């Protein structure tokens, strides 16, 4: 339906003709501009002027601010300024803002779409438009209003507060922005937000110029009156924000808007019919239809399903007259789907630039044929050129630039001095690039597309290839070390000028180079150093150890997740292409639940869309409501996105918050907690063990404060039950880990851990103060292992003299020996240490210096004196004495023999007494070399021996 008809204005087509002619190069902005002109023309009721303006405007006002971020105020301003004939000031802007204009083109149409709805408020809004425009004149040209709030700078006020209004038509809140503050009387914040979002509203957390409504509760969370809150104050400052008191007003507003919308409906019907007719009639004229359809969309669908999302996303305009490729089918079938889907508004610029692409159907075909109905949408609609990539523009352009200048940087043989590849400088020329970031955001795609666009030949290695040192050498050695000469001149007549085929290597998923690819990372680094072709490495975890060693050699490009609005828009386009209507809020909610992972979002949508209505064989649509109500079917497993510590906290706190909950919520909480265990099943039990007792403190303290011994006892009993559960857990885990490796017990482990957490918290759950600690068991266990080794070594030294195993050594001998040595070396009466006797004692038992000063000290249980703390005078006396004499202890003879030999240079064989000469000959060449190479005489040699022994 033609909006001009809708507005009752005439001469629309007449207007169109000249403009369309002019706008041949720039179809989009002009229609938008034109539309605006039309609207303002109506208002001003100066057809002629309008015509002129319209004719003029398209050229000059190319910039119709249609960006999402802008208020429709700007839009309105544009129109008003146009009425004021302020062309000259705007003249310069068009060139500057052409791009913006093109980009915002779809949004203009979207805005227009919203306009009819607010028809009845036109007089009002016109007035409003006049007002702010002078102030915002400048912004018109440069900024683009994101949302089509153009109709209502003043949102309608509800006239009554009602109890509830559960089921208004969808899309009534389109174009309005809501902010919540305070605690609502009968509705939780989340439910209120869901309510608003279900009907197309937008919810933000801060009051700004774009806010339409501020919903206030009775008081703020911390108890202060809501008037003190910053949001309230700001809203009153801004003045034009409508204050809604509690959900009563909200429902009242919903009712009001719903009634208004229903009043509009008949008109919508007719307009949609007309629109359909138009569509059939003139598919060829891309631009006009683009506008029209965009406008008509909200009304085309009587149910009002479609309107808002498109309005919001601003990606609407796309003319689908040229339904190329796979698009045609969906659209041919269903007249209703408005199919503004060409533009991915987030990447509006690129699309704007490619006029033809925007006229095509949804961009895609990156990895799968568009007509392939069984392909994954993530493949079908994968970007096929770098402009289609969502987000990370800077990274992409950096990569591109790097790639383009690679040869000139590195392979210039002609330059006199070689350009130094500074591997360790931040800005130095890099032979390799590293793309890092979370999965599903476009790293691999980028790399491939950039290389293709740069006209290079790609060679890819990823985690599915064996990438050990050997394999890399074999496969890539020659590639990196050489350049391909191509003798195909491709049409060049004169001589065969050899051309160098530029190549590039992609090392995908480098952080997946596991132990199987032994030496792989080192080989990659070596390769980078010597390479003659650029290498692009892709990884997920920038902070991992392996990648850290790679970073200095690479241009570091960090990829970030695209914002959910970007993904939402793209998702809506894809949905359109596949014949599936998706509400904008729903798309945003999906992308949020998938953690802004585009691939996942598209998969989710595909899954949703596979539900088809039995009668119409049309794909199921996705509304915000439906999405929220789904049974947790499609989202990235929530548990996976919870960190290890959060999961531990969840388990430790048990049934927190469940006191009022119904059975279903209780069961859900239990399942959630048992799932939380599997966040990291190896560590979770240990983490819970470390922290669960802290939860028990609070109930006990409460019981203690009450003074009743019985309650104290009961809190202890629940703590005890918790420890019992953890003890059971240890047994189950042992069954899993060792012996039979019975992994079937793992769910049992999970439940027992949850049981432990439950008991300490009690029926109402507990509270874990602070952040959960990491498990100390691991560290302690390795400490114990270390002490065990030391004990073993001590045992070796002493073994031929004593008869004791390791345990007895520790339990009986060690305290005794320690005591004896302490008495000798650090007499309590402060006298001189009896060094000779101490040394004799040590020799008797085969202890050496290390044993004394380090190892025995490790086994100190209390705050006793340590040998290491001995004062230096005694220590030096001891050392002198020790080195003087020869130590005949059997155990040390090898070590000592080396040391003494080095010191005394022969003449020691006799002194080694009745010990076998074998021990000396047993010294291998390496040991001798080590010994001579060591700085510290006895220590190093004995240390090396020690290393061998233990």
């Amino acid at each position: 339906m033609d909006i001009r008809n809708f507005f009752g204005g005439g001469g629309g087509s007449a207007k169109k003709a000249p403009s369309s002619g002019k706008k041949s190069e720039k179809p989009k902005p002009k229609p938008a501009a034109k539309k605006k002109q039309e609207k303002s023309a109506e208002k001003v009721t100066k057809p002629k002027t309008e015509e002129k303006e319209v004719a003029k405007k398209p050229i000059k006002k190319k910039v119709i601010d249609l960006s999402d971020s802008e208020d429709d105020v700007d839009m309105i301003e544009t129109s008003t300024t146009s009425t004021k004939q302020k062309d000259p000031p705007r003249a310069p802007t068009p060139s500057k803002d052409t791009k913006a204009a093109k980009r915002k083109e779809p949004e203009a149409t979207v805005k227009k779409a919203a306009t009819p709805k607010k028809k009845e408020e036109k007089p009002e809004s016109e007035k409003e438009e006049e007002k702010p425009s002078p102030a915002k004149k400048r912004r018109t040209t440069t900024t683009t209003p994101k949302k089509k709030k153009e109709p209502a700078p003043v949102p309608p006020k509800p006239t009554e507060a009602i109890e509830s209004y559960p089921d208004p038509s969808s899309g009534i809140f389109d174009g309005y922005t809501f902010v919540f503050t305070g605690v609502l009387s009968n509705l939780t914040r989340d439910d209120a937000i869901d309510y608003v979002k279900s009907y197309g509203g937008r919810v933000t957390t801060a009051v700004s110029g774009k806010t339409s409504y501020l919903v206030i509760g009775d008081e703020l969370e911390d108890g202060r009156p809501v008037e003190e809150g910053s949001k309230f104050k700001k809203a009153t400052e801004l003045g034009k924000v409508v204050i809604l008191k509690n959900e009563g007003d909200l429902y009242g507003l919903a009712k009001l808007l719903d009634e208004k919308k229903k009043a509009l409906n008949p008109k919508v019907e007719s307009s949609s019919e007309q629109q359909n007719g138009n569509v059939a009639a003139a598919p060829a004229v891309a631009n006009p239809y683009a506008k029209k359809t965009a406008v008509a969309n909200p009304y085309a669908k009587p149910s009002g399903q479609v309107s808002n999302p498109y309005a919001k996303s601003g990606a609407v305009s796309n003319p689908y007259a040229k339904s190329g490729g796979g698009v045609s089918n969906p659209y041919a079938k269903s007249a209703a789907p408005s199919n503004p889907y060409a533009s991915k508004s987030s990447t509006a610029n690129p699309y704007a630039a490619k006029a033809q692409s925007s006229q095509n159907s949804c961009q895609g075909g990156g990895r799968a044929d568009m007509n392939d109905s069984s392909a994954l949408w993530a493949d079908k609609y994968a970007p096929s050129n770098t402009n289609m990539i969502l987000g990370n523009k800077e990274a992409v352009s950096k990569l591109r630039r790097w790639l383009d200048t690679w040869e000139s940087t590195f392979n210039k043989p002609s330059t006199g001095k070689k350009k130094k590849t500074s591997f360790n400088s931040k800005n130095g020329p890099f032979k390799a690039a590293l793309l890092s970031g979370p999965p599903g955001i476009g790293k691999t795609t980028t790399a491939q597309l950039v290389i293709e666009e740069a006209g290079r030949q790609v060679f890819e290695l990823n985690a599915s290839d064996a990438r050990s040192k050997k394999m890399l050498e074999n496969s890539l050695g020659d590639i990196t070390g050489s350049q391909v000469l191509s003798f195909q001149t491709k049409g060049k007549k004169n001589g065969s000028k050899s051309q160098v085929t530029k190549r590039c290597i992609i090392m995908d998923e480098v952080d997946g180079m596991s132990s199987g690819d032994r030496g792989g990372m080192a080989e990659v680094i070596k390769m980078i150093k010597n390479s003659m072709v650029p290498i692009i490495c892709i990884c997920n975890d920038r902070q991992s150890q392996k990648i850290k060693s790679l970073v200095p050699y690479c241009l570091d490009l960090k990829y970030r997740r695209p914002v959910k609005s970007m993904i939402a828009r793209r998702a809506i386009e894809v949905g359109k292409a596949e014949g599936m209507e998706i509400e904008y809020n729903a798309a945003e909610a999906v992308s949020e639940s998938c953690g802004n992972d585009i691939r996942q979002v598209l998969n989710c949508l595909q899954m949703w869309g596979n539900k088809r209505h039995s009668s119409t064989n049309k794909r199921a649509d996705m509304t915000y409501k439906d999405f929220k109500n789904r049974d947790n079917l499609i989202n990235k497993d929530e548990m996976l996105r919870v960190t290890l510590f959060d999961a531990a906290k969840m388990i430790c706190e048990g049934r927190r918050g469940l006191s009022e909950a119904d059975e279903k919520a209780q069961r859900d909480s239990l399942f959630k907690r048992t799932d939380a265990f599997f966040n990291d099943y190896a560590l979770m039990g240990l983490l819970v063990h470390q922290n669960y007792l802290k939860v028990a403190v609070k109930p006990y303290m409460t019981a203690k404060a009450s003074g009743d011994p019985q309650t104290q006892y009961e809190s202890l009993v629940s703590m005890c039950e918790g420890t019992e559960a953890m003890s059971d857990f240890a047994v189950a885990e042992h069954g899993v880990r060792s012996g039979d490796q019975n992994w079937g017990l793992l769910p049992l482990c999970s439940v027992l851990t949850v049981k432990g957490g439950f008991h300490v918290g009690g029926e109402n759950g507990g509270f874990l103060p602070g952040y959960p600690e990491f498990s100390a068991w691991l560290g302690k266990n390795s400490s114990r292992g270390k002490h065990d080794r030391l004990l073993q070594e001590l045992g070796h030294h002493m073994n031929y003299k004593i008869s004791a195993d390791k345990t007895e050594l520790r339990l009986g001998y060690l305290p005794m020996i320690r005591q004896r040595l302490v008495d000798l070396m650090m007499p309590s009466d402060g006298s001189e240490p009896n060094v000779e006797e101490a040394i004799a004692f040590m020799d008797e038992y085969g202890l050496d210096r290390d044993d004394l000063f380090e190892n025995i000290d490790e086994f100190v249980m209390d705050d006793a004196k340590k040998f290491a703390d001995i004062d230096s005078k005694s220590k030096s006396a001891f050392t002198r004495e020790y080195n003087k004499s020869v130590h005949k202890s059997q155990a040390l003879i090898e070590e000592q023999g080396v040391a003494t030999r080095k010191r005394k240079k022969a003449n020691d064989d006799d002194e080694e007494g009745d010990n076998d000469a074998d021990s000396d000959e047993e010294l291998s060449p390496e040991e001798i070399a080590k010994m001579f190479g060591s700085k510290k005489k006895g220590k190093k040699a004995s240390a090396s021996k020690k290393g061998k022994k233990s």
Partner: protein
Amino acid sequence: MPLWVDKHRPKDLSQLTYHDDTTSRLKSLAEDPHSLPHLLFYGPSGAGKKTRISCLLKAIYGNGAERLRLDKRTFKTPTNRSVDVNMICSNYHIELNPGDAGIYDRFVVQEVIKEMAANKSLNAGGGIMGISASTEEDDSKKKKAVEYKIVVLMEVDKLTKQAQAALRRTMEKYSSTCRLILCCNNQSKVIDPLRSRCLGMRIAAPSHDDVCVALKNVAAKEKITLPDKLTIGIAEECSRNLRRAMLMLETSRVNAGSTVLRDNQGIHKTDWEMFILQLARDITMEQSPQKLIAAREKLYELLINCIPATLILKTLTMELIQNLDDELKYEVIEAAAFYEHRIAMGSKDIFHLEAFVAKFMTIYKKYLNDMFA
């Protein structure tokens, strides 16, 4: 100047002071060395197994068996992994602890025995070449030279099942050149086939009287005055472990500062025992989650110091029940036994120790509540 426990260790069968029946049996074995079977010495720690083994060796081989040297040998497993093992050798025997090799003990055992078996000792065949390496010390004992060597394996109850299985065949095959003496704490961990191939020698823990006698002997040799009361006190305190008793005696001597020991001087406990006592005191003083957390730290400290968990549990239990009624004693001991079993099954010790402490806290709290109610 070695500790008394080593200084006064009997070196000869005749110097053993208790278990006379075992001693006489060993003597008879030593008299006829050719028909010496494989032996399995078992019994609690500190009873005197190793002492008796070295006495037996001396009885069989003479003084040469006392000349010990320390050898470090590297064994190579089929998977090309090198394992280092320390062995104590004399010319006639080698003694080693295969538990040092961890999971590769099987290879160590096989290698050692095969090696020993492969080299016939000089004494084999007797006659002309009856020259033992230390002829000058082989004074009066002109018995026919023994043709085999002895391999002493310590801590066989810690051997893996595979190692024990490897042993049984080797034992039989090479018994002409190599006899085995196995030594362990707990016979139940030794597999049946091994047990059936050996003559079991049970060395029981000495009774309190035996301990007293031994202590008195040492006191006499060291020329110190040891009152009876103290002797009995030490004997009771040492939990029938003669080694500990000797160490305690020496500690008392040091604490007394002179050669005269007194009745009333306290018996000094080892550092870890003191630590556990402190822990027990803490637990009885206050029962709360905070205290449990503190107790956990102490338990970790003990575990890090390589004190076996079962011992911690036992010592702690004994200390805790001292102030309780009988029926509560029963409850606490039952809990202790339950958790000791769990520890013995091999899982992470700290969980069970902690659970036991928590259980004790609840029992004790109830007891207090009832008492003051």
